[in-house]
């Protein structure tokens, strides 16, 4: 689904990503760990196509198409969606209207969708105006539900969220990744769901989100390099016990990027 080949990215004069190779398959959820400043957000922003993230080498393939230099909206239309960590306020743009725009002409019921993330009372407010951390997450999820991407980028879905909201957000993220569809009564959901499973790339610091989703694989991003591929829970355990210092050792191994934890 998403294939990253030897990707090098600079911000200004500074090289942040130094040769990233990653393959996320159809329906797979991939968790990215890493300390602050390791380049996690840069990777997400580059995948989405933000300005200011200059690809100096390598390429990004999405479902076989080279999207390395594609404008952001074309990536979105191909099926890549992103949950923003700090989205801007747009005055005069109602959440309801933005939800409709996210669906790009498909039938969408903002009220019904908002009900699912407990966000109905915000539909007639300007998007992101005075939203708290948890409200931003719910708003982002609401937009993604309308957008229905086949590949989702989440930048720290748990940051700034209290425990009560975490449960709701975790469940909705899971539903999104499971490719939730509205089925006619009596229809068999299983084969359809498997087919529609959404892929995802999730950045997490705390790992709380792992309590809610089925994450298949994980890796640590450290100083612009990917290393330590393992089961996400194992990586989390390891980081909790030893911190990211171990990653330095791991990078120094003769075969970097793969150790069994």
């Amino acid at each position, binding site marked *: 689904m998403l294939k990253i080949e030897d990707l090098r990215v600079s911000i200004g004069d500074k090289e942040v990503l130094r040769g990233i190779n990653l393959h996320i398959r159809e329906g797979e959820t991939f968790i990215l760990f890493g300390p602050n400043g390791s380049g996690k957000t840069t990777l997400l922003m580059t995948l989405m196509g933000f300005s200011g993230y200059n690809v100096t080498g390598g390429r990004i393939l999405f479902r076989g198409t080279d999207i390395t230099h594609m404008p952001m*909206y074309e990536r979105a239309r191909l099926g890549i*969606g992103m949950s923003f960590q700090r989205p801007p306020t*747009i005055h005069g743009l109602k959440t309801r209207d933005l939800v409709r*725009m996210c669906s790009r002409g498909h039938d969408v019921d903002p009220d019904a969708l908002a009900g699912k993330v407990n966000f109905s009372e915000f539909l007639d407010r300007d998007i992101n105006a005075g939203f708290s951390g948890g409200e931003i997450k719910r708003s982002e999820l609401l937009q993604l539900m309308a957008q229905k991407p086949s590949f989702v980028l989440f930048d720290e879905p748990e940051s700034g969220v209290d425990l009560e909201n975490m449960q709701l957000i975790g469940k909705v993220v899971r539903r999104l990744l499971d490719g939730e569809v509205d089925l006619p009564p009596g229809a068999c959901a299983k084969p359809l769901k498997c087919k529609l499973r959404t892929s995802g790339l999730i950045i997490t610091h705390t790992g709380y989100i792992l309590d809610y989703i089925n994450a298949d694989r994980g890796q640590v991003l450290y100083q612009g390099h990917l290393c330590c591929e393992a089961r996400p829970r194992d990586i989390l355990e390891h980081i909790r016990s030893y911190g990211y210092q171990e990653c330095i050792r791991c990078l120094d191994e003769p075969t970097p990027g793969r150790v069994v934890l």
Partner: protein
Amino acid sequence: MKEVNLKDYTFSGAEHGQIADLRTLDNSDKDRILHAGVDLDHGEGSALFMQMDQSTVHCETRDPGVELLDINVAMKRYDGLPGYAWNNVDRDKDEFTRAVAAKTHGGYFVRTKPGAIIKKPVQSCLFLKADRSGQNVHNIVVVEENSEVHIMTGCSTAHGETHGAHLGITEFYVKKGGKLTFTMIHNWGEGANVRPRTVGVVEEGGVFQNNYVLLSPVGTLQMYPTINLNGRGGIARFNSVIVTPKGSHVDAGNRVIMNAPETRCEIISRTITTGGVNIARGHIAGHAVPCKGHLECKSLILGGGQSLAIPELDATVEGVDLSHEAAVGKIAQDEIEYLMARGMDEAEATSTIVRGFLNVDIMGLEGPLAKSIKNQVAQIDARAF
């Protein structure tokens, strides 16, 4: 401000007879008027008025709660409208007021009955059809005690190319507990020079709500409508949306003078300059306590031009509460990218942000008027980008 030379225009000879049914107007004229917010084909107002060049061509009331007369008829019938005519506006203020005082071509006199709630708007249309002609208009609106009315007035030329001068005097009288909503849409053209002169008085507990929309080009426009809140608890609100393309010179502001305790006012303007000159003025004065006023002018420059915001606050008593917020900004890249990440291309994203910025929803307008404004906002985007 570029001066208007009134000698360039003829102030006689562009007279027209009565038009009993305004649906019989040319389709192109009706379309221009529709863009000024008045739908003549599906008009459902409580009253309907039309001034064409130098004549009142239509004056019709459909609601017994509201009186509508041509201004010259009203002046004759009510002995010169003492206490109303030239009471708020000084006839010697400038050459434009003097011109209208010397020769009033028309205009409307609207008066509600005390306590009457007029559900449907009074619709008025001031139209410049003949080329190089001048139009002298005098409007007087009296909202009697505890009554409510919405006046929608659309001002337009017959073509974008029509040269003309529109001099319009408007005097508002909102009595105790009355409520007046006044919505004005301008749809002139690059050849039009427009000089409205507007002053209103609001008595105790009265409310004056003004909506102004100018989305199309105009040669020069200069106005500074002023509301005096003279009674306890009076409220005035101004919302303006102004776009100045290349060739347009607009100097427009709103002024509220709070002369009584417990008065409140709010002046909000959104302007976009796409190559023209826009001067956004605002003035709030507080001369009694408690009173509260807020002034907000926000501007965007898209593709050149000049934007000059001049907010003024004037307080003469201890304890007044006045504030202002003025900003000239740009469309932020992070806002565009946020929307692009949802699948909008750059033009869609920009026009979505511009629509939000202009925020015409705040006026709470409905029906064909809201639709017309929406269409026009979409067109500005096409022109600007």
